[in-house]
Structures are given as C-alpha cells and as structure tokens.
C-alpha cells in the first residue's frame, strides 16, 4: 500500500507540523510541543475548559475540533495510541480558566489509563477535572455493558455538545451532565470493506475477503465484531439502522442529528448514497433530521468503510448543537 510518506516513524510529527502551519488561525502548540495544542480563541477565565484527545490516524479528528465554541485543547498520541499523561496535563493547564476542566475522549484502555494519570496530576495542581468517556459504538458491547462500549465517530456530537456547554459558561458539573447525556443519546455503527494499513507496515492490518464486509468496525483498524457477506448499500444501512432503532428511544416526532462518516478511503459519492437510505429509514418512522454531516470526520487512516451516527435530540441538545463554533473542520454561525 503506497502512501505519501517520508519516514514512517516521523509521520505524526510531520503531520502535526503541517497542521500547526495550516491552522494557525485556530490553534497553536503549548510549550513548543505539537503534541498538545491549544485553541487561540478558546480558554477564558470563568469558562470550563474542554480537553479532548486520543491517538493520531483519525484526522481531522480530533485536532480539527479545536477552536472557539468547541474544544479548548487537544492532546495527540501516536497512531492509534493514546497520548501520554504529560501532554494531556499541559492541555488541562492551558485550558483551565479557573472553573475546572472537562476531559472527553473515547473509551479505550490506553486512553483511560493515560487520561486518568493526567487527571490525578491536574487535580494535584489544583485543577478540578471531570471526565466523560464516549461510548457510542453500540456493536462493541451489549446494552447491559453500555459503559464498556468504545467511542467512535459519534464523539463528533459529544464534543460539539460539550464545547457549546462550556462556551455558554455552564458549571463543570452541568457541562459534565449534558455531555454525558449527549453521549448516552448517541449511537454509532461502523462497517468496513477494506482494512487500513499503518505507515510502518504499509500492508493491510488484516484481510477482509473480496466478497465480505465487517460490521461493528472500530476506528483503529481492529477487525470488526462480525464478518458478513457483502450486500448492497441499502441493505447495509438497513442492518445498521435496525441496530440503532433497537436502542434508540426516538419515536414519531423526534428529532435527530445524523453523521455519515468516511473511515478514510470511502468517497463522498458513496456516503451520499448511504445518507439517502438513512434519511428514508428515519422519515419512514416520522423522525426528522435536525442537522446532518456527511464526509470525513473521524477516520481510521486509509480504511475503506463508513459509520453512521445518530444523536437523539431534546430541546437542550438541539440548542447546544446549533451553538456557534469556529474550528478548522466545523463552523457553525
């Protein structure tokens, strides 16, 4: 698998160098290291700080969500690896405006351990920390183990809600509560047609048969939860939506937000075909789409595949969803 690449061991540093130059308007390194980036127009005194983060390989996640009205800082790890505690701690300090800091990140063993270590250090330094783990991947564990699920592209919605709550000046406790609600109301299923390949190996992480598809795909190139025979786009969406409907409480008259996300190599033409069916399924149930995003929002290197995320809205979430923000990837006015 060919890639635009210099030294595979330097790809994250080189990418971040590019990011920092490209998005000067939105972010800048804390303490000279590009592994901890702070919003130029983010932290302010009296506002809860929002720190997000995780491994690389999900671009434009998560650094594309740093800016006014969204995250105040992002900690960046190696490819598919949590950042260590130090850059997370730097983010917490830089994001702190005296009202505490909210950590929002995906529920993975590595991220949890590193962010928890950083949280302890930050608390020691006098910064109150609250944490919300995103757990939107409904295929990754049964409903009884809701908290054990992993976070995938649905973190887009959870970040957005958290950023809006912080920007509105809510208290740390209220920011945490509404972010937790957003996460609990977000449901994602991912499917993959081809595995991704790491810059270091340049071969697919694993093989998906020529006539197979993986359901329940994570965003780290791990194999999916189950392998099935390849089916049509509409049938795929139907399977995904059936899973989501089984968990979602939305009924006729409900409003939702929709994200159809490319895992990297799936082009927008196909995403629109998927979205078409998502919209059909929702409107058949009388559920209205309040807002939708279609494109590359939370990727897994060059994986061929897509995920569908639905956030069930209520009045509070709707307001926060539409709250203005200005970041490299997401601008709401």
């Amino acid at each position: 698998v060919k890639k635009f690449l210099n030294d595979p061991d330097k790809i994250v540093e080189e990418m971040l160098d590019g990011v920092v130059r490209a998005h000067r308007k939105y972010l800048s390194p804390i303490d000279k290291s590009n592994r901890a980036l702070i919003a130029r127009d983010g932290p302010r005194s009296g506002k809860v700080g929002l720190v997000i983060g995780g491994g690389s390989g999900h671009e434009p996640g998560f650094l594309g969500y740093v800016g006014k009205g969204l995250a105040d800082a992002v900690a960046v790890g190696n490819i598919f690896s949590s950042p260590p505690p130090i850059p997370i701690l730097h983010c917490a300090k830089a994001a702190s405006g005296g009202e505490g800091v909210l950590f929002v990140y995906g529920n993975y063993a590595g991220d949890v351990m590193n962010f928890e270590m950083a949280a302890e250090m930050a608390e020691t330094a006098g910064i109150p920390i609250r944490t919300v783990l995103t757990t939107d991947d409904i295929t990754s564990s049964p409903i009884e183990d809701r908290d054990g699920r992993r976070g995938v592209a649905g973190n887009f919605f959870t970040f957005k809600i958290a950023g809006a709550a912080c920007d509105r000046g809510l208290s740390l406790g209220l920011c945490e509560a509404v972010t937790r609600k957003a996460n609990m109301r977000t449901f994602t299923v991912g499917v993959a047609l081809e595995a991704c390949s790491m810059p270091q190996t340049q071969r697919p992480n694993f093989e998906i048969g020529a006539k197979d598809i993986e359901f329940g795909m994570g965003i780290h190139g791990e194999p999916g939860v189950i392998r099935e025979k390849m089916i049509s786009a509409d049938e795929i969406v139907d399977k995904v939506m059936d899973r989501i409907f089984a968990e979602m409480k939305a009924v006729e008259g409900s409003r939702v937000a929709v994200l159809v996300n490319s895992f990297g190599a799936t082009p927008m033409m196909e995403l629109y075909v998927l979205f078409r069916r998502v919209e059909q399924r929702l409107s058949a149930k009388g559920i209205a789409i309040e807002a939708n995003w279609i494109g590359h929002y939370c990727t897994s290197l060059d994986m061929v595949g897509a995920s569908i995320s639905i956030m069930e809205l209520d009045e509070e979430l709707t307001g926060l969803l539409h709250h203005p923000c200005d970041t490299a990837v997401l601008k709401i006015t």
Partner: protein
Amino acid sequence: MAENDARKLNRMFNRISSLIATEKDYLTELDGAIGDADHGITMLLGFGAVSSELARSDLDDMPPSAVMTIAASVFLNAVGASTGPLYATAFLHAAKALELRQSLDAAGQVAVLQAIALGIQERGKGQRGDKTMLDTWIPAAEAGGAALERASGPAELWRDVVTAGEGGAMATRSMVAVRGRAARLGERSLGHVDPGAASAVLILKAMTEVFTD
C-alpha cells in the same frame, strides 16, 4: 571494574530493545489479528527511547532504582497507548522494590519480576486469564518466587521463569479477551496469541541473558 547494577539494567534494556526490534513485525502481526497492529511499533519506540536516554545518562553512581525510574518516565512519555501506563507503573514498582534492597541479586531480580506483575495488575485492573501481558508476567513472577524458595541457581531460576512465562503466553491462544482492544472481538479473539503476552516473553528472555551470564 565490575559492571554495577545500573549498567546491568542498562544492558538489559538494550537487549530488550534489540529482541523487540527483531520481532517487531511478528508482534505487529499478532496485534493486527486482534488489535490495532501497532504493538511492535509501540514497544520498539518505548524501549528504544529508554535505551537512548540511558545511553545519555551517567550510570556510574546511579542506583539501580533510579534506572527503573528513568525507564518508567521515558517509556510512558514516548508511547502513551496502553503499554505506556502499564509498563511505566510496572517499572515504578520495580524501582520501589529496588530502593528497599538496592541489590540485583537473585532476590532482587525476583522482586523486580513481582513488582512488574503487580504494577501492571494495579494499573490495568486485570488478572490472569484476561488474555493480556499478565498471562506472561504473573506465572513468570510466581515461578521466580518458587525457584527462589527452592534456592535454585540463576540458570535454573530464569529457565523456570521463561518456561512459565512462555506457557502463559501460549495459553492466551485459547482465551477470549476481556481487557484491551481485543475484548471487543469476543470469540473472534480465540486462536490468536495476545501480542502483549508475546512481547513480555521477549523481555523475560532479555532479562535471562543479562542475569545469567
């Protein structure tokens, strides 16, 4: 001049780095089957960074515990990931064990083994049978303790340790993962050796080389 303990540990970390470098692709392949295909990369990055840092350090007057403390912080900051906190905590525990005795004799070596196993358990909240690196470390530490009680010589002690560790690693093949990324795969993780368990065996082998020569 005899090699001091700090230099011995330095040599140990160098051997770990080179064994992992040799097996990097194998580890990454194991992780590709049930995880995210980066374990070889991560481990080499971490131990490579430890080796480089130690190469820059003045080891002459350094107590062995200090070497482990350096290793903990360098490893953690170089890799993050799951292995960062796990091995960092393990090495910090080892440093504490060495602080108590400041000697790398057989009892010190086994204390390090036990500290590593305990540190990983503490940080990762895991146990034997979870299909993780603990399936290597716990039996290895137990075998070390038993050999010490039997007052075995270093060759025998380390042979027992590696045998136990290897046995544990092989046993992960027939386990269903309950920790780490592989846990999402459920039954699909069956039939694959856990990458963290496999790399732990390499660490044991490097320790064996250094502590038995």
